[in-house]
């Protein structure tokens, strides 16, 4: 415990340097803007801006990206409330009551409650994170190859069991991500693999960023452009000292909903397939059930803003826990952060807590600072963010496309990757229209290399027998949980059939 405090103080010493404070400030502001733009969320911002972080050392780079992640979580609420369009999928639940509040002329109060709830959610979850992470990492140090592989299977199984998308399409998405990660030189024999059309560009493999920017940059913009055909009505809000006082007074009445949302969001966020979107929707549902006046939900209840906003911020911290301690990302955004660590020359996993204490604790301490910064910037510059909402897509889209192209070129400096990214973007958009989930593929391409090496090492240890995953207590437990998750959808299909009787069978 004392050790944790010592590390945390060292972390703060890293954060409170002028450069890093500036980085947090810029990151939070950029994140708020990205979050506020309808259609763009933390994952898009982090994917598109990751290549820009090569300028600074890894610790500052991850502090910057984590600040964007936080800022975007706060910012999502702005467009949910002012436009009634979620700024990101994570802020969907905020529209339910935030928009009605704005329509009744209480937009300022809704914004202040959202920001305060985000702050509380973020802070509670960072405290939990600080306490949970070191013991989890210490425990994970003892993991062997079979355990690591079982853990990955579990991560993928959560998408099938909890993701809620079409099962064959989810599995397809996971598998294609894994196959793409296998392109290039084989790690064991050194032989070239899957070199399509003998293009030399495939020898260095398919960089995860190429897929991530293709999907979260290009495909996302194509998708957003198609969706945002109609005109939008921006609500008016002016924020004064008095209204901040009122808003905070109102926020204090949501104590129960905010605390519940923070805790729920944090634990849901830890699961790879779940994360901030389901976390905030669940928090909204639970807040409604706990409320004495559930009938006022959907008509501008403050609890309905506070619960999902605290939950989505808490979930974003929660998703960093497995990323940092186990090397398994808890969300698409943290998958990209994890890939970034590899580019910066770090080896993700529990050993980070031993070998890269500066990186780990600098990041954790920066989360505390980012929360405070984002709250202040958010409240102080509400008019600026409302202005962003009025930016037409015909300015935003080409700028984002240009950022994607340059960002896709920078890491490998190969036009081959830019073309590949373009193809991923176009195909990703076409697939998304048919309900193919995209997040599993991004997670899979990041985890792919480690999944393959841990599988091959395990099989070597056991001379080819898959039973090795069931002989060790830890990997066996993980595998059984994974199998349960994989079978979960089958059970619900079976139940549905039984319930709907013979008429259901003919459908």
């Amino acid at each position, binding site marked *: 415990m004392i050790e944790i405090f010592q590390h945390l103080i060292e972390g703060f010493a890293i954060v409170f340097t002028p450069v890093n404070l500036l980085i947090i400030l810029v990151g939070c502001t950029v994140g708020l803007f990205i979050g506020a733009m309808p259609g763009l969320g933390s994952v898009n911002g982090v994917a598109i801006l990751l290549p820009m972080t090569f300028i600074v050392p890894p610790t500052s780079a991850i502090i910057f990206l984590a600040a964007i992640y936080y800022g975007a979580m706060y910012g999502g609420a702005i467009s949910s409330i002012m436009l009634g369009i979620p700024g990101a999928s994570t802020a969907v639940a905020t529209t339910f009551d935030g928009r009605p509040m704005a329509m009744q002329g209480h937009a300022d109060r809704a914004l202040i409650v959202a920001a305060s709830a985000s702050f509380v959610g973020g802070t509670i979850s960072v405290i939990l994170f600080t306490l949970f992470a070191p013991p989890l990492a210490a425990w994970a140090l003892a993991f062997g190859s079979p355990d690591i592989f079982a853990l990955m299977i579990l991560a993928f199984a959560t998408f099938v069991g909890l993701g809620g998308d079409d099962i064959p399409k989810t599995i397809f998405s996971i*598998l294609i991500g894994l196959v793409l990660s296998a392109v290039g030189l084989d790690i064991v024999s050194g032989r070239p693999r899957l070199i399509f059309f003998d293009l030399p560009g495939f020898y260095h493999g398919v960089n995860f960023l190429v897929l991530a920017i293709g999907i979260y940059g290009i495909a996302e913009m194509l998708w957003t452009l198609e969706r945002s055909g109609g005109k939008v009505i921006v609500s008016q809000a002016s924020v004064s000292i008095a209204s901040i006082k009122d808003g905070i007074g109102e926020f204090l009445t949501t104590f129960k909903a905010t605390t519940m949302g923070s805790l729920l969001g944090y634990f849901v966020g830890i699961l790879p397939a779940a994360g901030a979107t389901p976390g905030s929707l669940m928090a909204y549902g639970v807040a409604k059930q706990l409320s004495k006046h559930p009938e006022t939900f959907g008509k501008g209840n403050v609890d309905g803003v506070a619960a999902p906003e605290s939950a989505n911020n808490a979930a974003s911290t929660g998703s960093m826990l497995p990323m940092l301690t186990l090397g398994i990302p808890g969300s698409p955004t943290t998958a990209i952060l994890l890939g970034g660590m590899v580019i910066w020359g770090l080896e993700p996993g529990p050993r980070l807590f031993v070998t890269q204490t500066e990186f780990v604790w600098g990041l954790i301490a920066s989360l505390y600072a980012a929360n405070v910064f984002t709250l202040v910037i958010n409240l102080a510059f509400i008019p600026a963010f409302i202005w962003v909402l009025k930016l037409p897509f*015909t300015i935003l889209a080409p700028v984002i496309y240009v950022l994607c192209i340059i960002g896709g070129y920078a890491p490998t400096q190969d036009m081959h990757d*830019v073309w590949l990214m373009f193809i991923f973007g176009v195909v990703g958009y076409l697939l998304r*229209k048919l309900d193919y989930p995209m997040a599993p593929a991004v997670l899979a391409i990041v985890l792919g290399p480690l999944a393959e090496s841990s599988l091959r090492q395990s099989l070597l240890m056991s001379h080819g027998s898959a039973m090795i995953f069931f002989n060790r207590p830890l990997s066996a437990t993980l595998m059984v949980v994974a199998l349960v998750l994989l079978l979960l959808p089958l059970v619900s299909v079976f139940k549905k059939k039984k319930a709907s009787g013979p008429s259901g069978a003919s459908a």
Partner: protein
Amino acid sequence: MRRAELIMAVAMAILSACFMWKSAELPIGWVQGSGPGAGAYPFWLSTGMLICCVLMIVNWVRRSSPPSRSTESYMDGHSLRLFLYGAGSLGIMIALIHVIGVYFAVPLYLIFYMRFLGRHAWRLTGTMAVATPVITFMFFEIVLNITLPKGMTEPLFYPLFDLFL
């Protein structure tokens, strides 16, 4: 939507089969002493992809997935036009980068998109078309030392490099 769902599933099945065939160029069985062959991992994963595609087609026949029941059109005229403009102009810009480089392809693209698709004023369009490449150059070439492709316009940049580096 229904037809698109089938076409996509078949296309993805063909892709999976290509992956399998490509992986099978390497040993996919057990190699004595070194474990699974180099092609085994992608081969079995692609096999899994193919099975998923078959399941999607089964779902299509049984009409049990939402897109296979949907009567909406996959892409109406409006979204098709948006898609062709968006993706098409982007593809043309990437192709132009090979010829005239980033610093000339990007402004052309911005002018096309903002002026002709967005109908923004020339002043705004012009400012963006000039500012974007200048900021990009400063950030990537000067600060990060990453050279972006310049195609045939490469010689134009020699004086700038002499000035800054």
